[in-house]
């Protein structure tokens, strides 16, 4: 929970670096972020993954769907650095190709969930009375909706129209991101609202109000930055959940066509063959794990960087 006064100085006695030149909070935050070694390292790793996924298919030119019955379920080798699956398709190529989709879905769905959740939670937390009750009713409604029939319904209603508008792959992508993101904002909304309920009664907010700050300013400058703790945790969890949710959807036939090798899909195909082809499940699983790890440490770094109480 955010506090009221500055905490006592922590370890760093070099804090006399505090300059006389004033810096904007943004640049100040960036400077402090750079000192958070783990976060910087993770940013680099994440960038490597993103670039590999974007540029990889140009550098590693093995086709993703070349079926070769003689090379089934082989472990890593020079011609197939990450091995092959049960139809002999090269895993490195598939992982690079599918990575674009998995990362895009994960990040996009996460952004939707977080944005919608923060907005609704903030509005509900700031207002009392009917608006709060109504927004919480909507939240409860979405929480009660059974995912599967809802997904079937949405796909059935919108899939063909979107396909005609922007082509099959983009259409499916939008639907999936909308559905996954659209069903994960509720915990974020409730968490943010809980934070707001507590924070808006604190003295520093009252002080800001007394100084004439508009509600908008109170929220954006004073309350929201202090409420970000659980939001950042939710963001990391949502990326992983979105990637996994996409694989569950495709298992039910509602996601990308089954020949598109998203990470979750590869993991799903590999699950029955783990006793003979460990590499098949190991690599996509490890990649999901590393992506989640890096995003989380970056989030931690961001939070520490912008935390006024911590002197870095």
């Amino acid at each position, binding site marked *: 929970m955010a506090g009221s006064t500055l905490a006592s100085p922590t370890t760093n006695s070099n804090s006399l670096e505090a300059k006389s030149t004033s810096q904007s909070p943004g640049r100040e935050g960036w400077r402090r972020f750079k000192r958070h070694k783990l976060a910087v390292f993770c940013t680099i790793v994440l960038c490597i993954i993103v670039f590999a996924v974007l540029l990889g298919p140009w550098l590693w030119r093995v086709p993703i*769907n*070349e*079926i070769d*019955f003689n090379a*089934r379920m082989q472990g890593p080798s020079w011609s197939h650095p990450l091995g092959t699956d*049960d*139809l002999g398709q090269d895993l490195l190529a598939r992982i690079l190709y599918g990575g674009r989709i998995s990362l895009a879905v994960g990040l996009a769905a996460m952004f939707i969930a977080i944005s919608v959740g923060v907005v609704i939670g903030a509005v509900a937390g700031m207002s009392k009375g009917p608006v709060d009750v109504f927004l919480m009713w909507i939240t409860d409604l979405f929480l009660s909706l059974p995912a599967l029939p809802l997904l*079937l319904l949405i796909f*059935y209603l919108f899939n*063909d129209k979107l396909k005609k508008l922007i082509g*099959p792959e983009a259409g499916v992508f939008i639907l999936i991101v909308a559905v996954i993101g659209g069903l994960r904002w509720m915990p974020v909304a409730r968490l943010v609202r809980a934070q707001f309920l507590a924070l808006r009664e604190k003295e520093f907010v009252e002080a800001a109000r007394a100084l004439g700050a508009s509600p908008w300013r109170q929220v954006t400058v004073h309350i929201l930055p202090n409420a970000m703790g659980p939001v950042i945790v939710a963001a990391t969890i949502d990326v992983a959940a979105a990637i996994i949710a996409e694989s569950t959807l495709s*298992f*039910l*036939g*509602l996601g990308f*066509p*089954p*020949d598109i090798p998203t990470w979750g899909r590869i993991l799903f*195909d590999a699950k*029955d*063959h783990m*006793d*003979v082809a460990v590499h098949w499940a190991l690599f996509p699983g490890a990649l999901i794990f590393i992506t989640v790890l890096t995003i989380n440490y970056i989030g931690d770094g961001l939070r520490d960087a912008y935390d006024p109480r911590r002197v870095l």
Partner: protein
Amino acid sequence: MNESEIRRLIDQVRDNGISRKQFIRHMIGAGLTVPMAAQMLLTSGLAQAQTASNYKPTKRGGGGALKVLWWQGATLLQPHFASGTKDQEGSRIFYEPLGAWDADGNLIPILAAEVPSLANGGVSRDGKSITWKLKKNVQWHDGKPFTADDVVFTAAYAADPATSAYTSGSYKDVKVTKVDSHTLKVEYQKPSPFWADPFVSAAGMIIPKHIFESFKGATSRDAPANLKPVGTGPYKFVDFKPGDMLRGAINTNYHEANRPYFDTIEMKGGGDAVSAARAVLQTGEYDYAWNLQVEDELLVRLEQGGKGKTSIIPGGNIEFIQLNMTDPWTETDGERSHPKSKHPILTEFAVRQAISLCIDRDGVQKFIYGRTGIATANFLNNPQRFVSKNTKYEFNPDKAAQVLETAGWKKGADGIREKGGKKLKLVFQTSINSPRQKTQQIIKQAAQKAGIDIEIKAIPASVYFSSDPANPDTYTKLFVDMQMFTTTMPQPDPEIFMNQYLSDQFATKANKWLGRNSTRYSNPEYDKTYLAAQSEMDPVKRAALFVKMNDMPVNDIAIIPVVYRPRVSAAVNNLVAPLSGWDNDLWLLKDWYKNT
């Protein structure tokens, strides 16, 4: 194979020139079913082979618990409301029919004292009436005696339209009368070549009159006995949790001596096929698992543990591809895939031929289905690798490319062929199922080499196989260019199976797409042959007609058979479970035992 050739083979069997088994294999090669072949011999006066029983135990009970895994759990226990085999199997533990089909297609008496035939007077000369003699001293689980009244009641119950029984098709056109307490007569309106439909196998399970008579017609679904069955079977009902667990205990008054062997039976439902296979073949937690739709190489790997083995039993199911003869992309009279419309690309024979040449059946068999899917060129049942003289299959994408080239389809800049402004692009749908998706991928890749662009679509099975008229993705609608699924032949006789190519069976908006002809294939010759076969009493002539019917849609390449699907199950090593591909897995549950 025509009629005279078949008759010649029958004479050879009669003269002991060839064995019954060899005759049956010849018939199968021509595309007929085992029971049809057996029936042909029967009606030609060649007595049924007596199948020796391998049942060893010498006393009733003492075998402990039998645990079976049905990964689609039974949800109700009334055989006449059983829409799928899982419910039929659940009911089969407690109920029995008059007769059942064994693996060789012979009719085995269960509640009947003997199988009706010309010789014993059970089958009348004109083929219009059958007399069944019932076994005596059979009791229901509650102690009341089993008589002909129960059989007559079952027929009336199923035939009553107010009951909406799923088995009504077998009973609505027959008249059943009681002759005496253990004899009854079944009369058909027209001479019926295949009379062994009512009271036989899954549709023929007899239900007790004294329990169900207050729940006929409209109130039939409220009967408590729907969930607490009272039958004549080897096990009595103990407990039932729909979709999860079904338990039975030994019936000490069972009508056959020394049977059943096990003291209790437990049928667990839920989960998926792979873990079911593991539970039997790797950990031995369960004794038997049904319908293992699993890649064969996985099964082989699991069998290597040595704890159990898989059984592959031939049946009548075939995985095949349908090509749409009508246009699914434009609406005619407000309807897509209207029978009057013509498909812009697929009506050209060269294109269909090219597609057929891109199907690597051997690859699909070898790398996807293994023993569970055998490459075939016939629609009507081809279990051995006999190639029928009339149909054959070939995999040759280069030849496909050539065929298209000569037909005027030139490759465009993107590698996809086009002609007259039309691109050779097709949408190919099927249900969600790992082997099917892999098959789609293999076909897509080969087609790409020939210059055909195939877009893969996979639909959840519950949507694909539904009857909802508002849903565009059902398989009967075929609102895309090609589709693939397994069509099942639940009965040994192909007459109902083959009606899916009749012109009057088109699936249209008017009949809410409940018609069975989804390719909208239309061939007047086929319609004529079918009509002839329906009233043909001579089984040999009839068989020849069916062979002819098989060849038509296949040679016109309106359909492309891919693999023939036998039934796959797994059992622990010491379990002896006689299985039949023409009936439920539990058809002879009374004879199951374990070697100790």
